[in-house]
């Protein structure tokens, strides 16, 4: 099976899109981020070397199925629909949706203030679904705009076409830290709590690999490495469940 193959080679190949701060980033020409740190530790636990691949999102899933690599170590929001097609590992990050606004915009101070305003989010993301559901509950719904990439939503907010951007809380927080004069986080997060996991191919073949990785994640929960890594990048450590969360 997959795990024994990996052990035999002594190497695990992990693909991600190095384009999702602070989980996966390319900084100073090197791959860094929460997922990098975490997965490096996981590989140590498995006793194998790790090779990271950077792929655009549209070729990550075909590549996984074609066996070009063993696992996707990008943060993927765990949803019911996705679980049908792939195996997820235990949560490694908080994916609950939060808002960012343009720095100094006093008209938005809490999530409900987006009523009637233009809000951008990433196409097809779980956070977009949360945003839409939340918007329905408001007196006047927000004008929700969908972008292929979250960068473009942020750029459009900077250009003034939209007033807020919704995405996972860590990402929004990181953006605000990176461009403090430009973006500002809107607290608190809203909607259902959501989590990021890693993705392995579905089926028997990968079951043992997923189990082994889960074991490593649990161990890191216990010895505090998980918390330490999260604190290093986010300043705080989120509460992460140690069992697979129930999804609708």
């Amino acid at each position, binding site marked *: 099976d997959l795990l024994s193959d990996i052990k035999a080679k002594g190497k695990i190949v992990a693909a991600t899109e190095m384009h999702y701060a602070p989980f996966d980033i390319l900084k100073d020409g090197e791959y860094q981020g929460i997922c990098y740190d975490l997965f490096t530790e996981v590989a140590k636990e498995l006793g194998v070397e790790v090779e990271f691949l950077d792929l655009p999102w*549209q070729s990550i*899933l*075909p590549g996984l199925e074609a066996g070009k690599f063993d696992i996707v170590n990008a943060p993927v929001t765990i949803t019911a*629909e*996705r679980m049908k*097609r*792939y195996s997820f590992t235990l949560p490694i990050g908080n994916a609950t949706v939060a808002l960012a606004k343009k720095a100094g915009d006093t008209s938005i101070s809490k999530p409900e203030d987006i009523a009637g305003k233009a809000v951008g989010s990433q*196409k*097809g*993301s779980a956070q977009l679904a949360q945003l839409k559901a939340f918007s329905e509950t408001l007196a006047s719904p927000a004008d929700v*705009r*969908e*972008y*292929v*990439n979250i960068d*473009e939503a942020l*750029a*459009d907010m*900077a*250009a*003034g*076409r939209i007033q807020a951007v919704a995405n996972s809380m860590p990402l929004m927080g990181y953006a605000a830290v990176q461009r403090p004069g430009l973006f500002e986080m809107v607290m608190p997060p809203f909607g259902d709590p959501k989590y990021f996991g890693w993705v392995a191919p579905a089926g028997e073949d990968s079951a043992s690999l997923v189990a082994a990785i889960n074991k490593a994640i649990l161990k890191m929960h216990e010895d505090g490495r998980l918390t330490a890594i999260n604190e290093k990048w986010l300043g705080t450590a989120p509460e992460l469940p140690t069992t697979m969360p129930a999804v609708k």
Partner: protein
Amino acid sequence: MEFDLFIRYGPALLTGFGVTILCWLVGSMGGVVVGFVLACLNRWGPRPLSWLIYAYVEVIRGTPFMIQLFILYYGGPYVGLVLSPIQAGILSFIVYGSPYFAEIFRSGFNAVPKGQIEAARCVGLSEKRILWRVILPQMLVPITAPLTNFFIILTKETAILSVVTVPELLYETQTMAAETFTFVEPFLVLSLFYWLMVVGASWLGSKVEARVTRHLKRA
């Protein structure tokens, strides 16, 4: 393969296809016209203008469309140019395509034998008539194929319009891909639609070519 996807997303995909075709046709036709004018000004216009055109051609042709579009759409508002996605899409398409077309036309101008232009001058045809009646019909022989090529390339460049949220084909297929977590199906749809456009463009190209090479067919 999940065929019910096609039914579920069918209407959205078709609308996306419509938007793609709109941007493609308007953008590339505009590009042809602007390119032709540029090529003419470059050839017959005053010297300094042709340097300007040279710079325009090299800069626009030399940089990626995605980046031009990004700068136009997201950078535009900083200088007071606020465009809607489709406006920005079509405008940037015209801007992006025109230098390529201009170069194709330039090669066409060069391909017409000098003697024929001299003959036209000798019977007193004006430069404009010479362009329309002598140069253009003949230059279409070598340039119809490159023109068709570039129309085909532009069909695929429409995909880039998705970065400014133009609800075109790729944008819609990505919605489908992201929401359903599928990849083969969206690519199939995408390929099929592009292929349709390419077939259309090739067909038109071959018709034009047959028309303009009529005189070369020996009995």
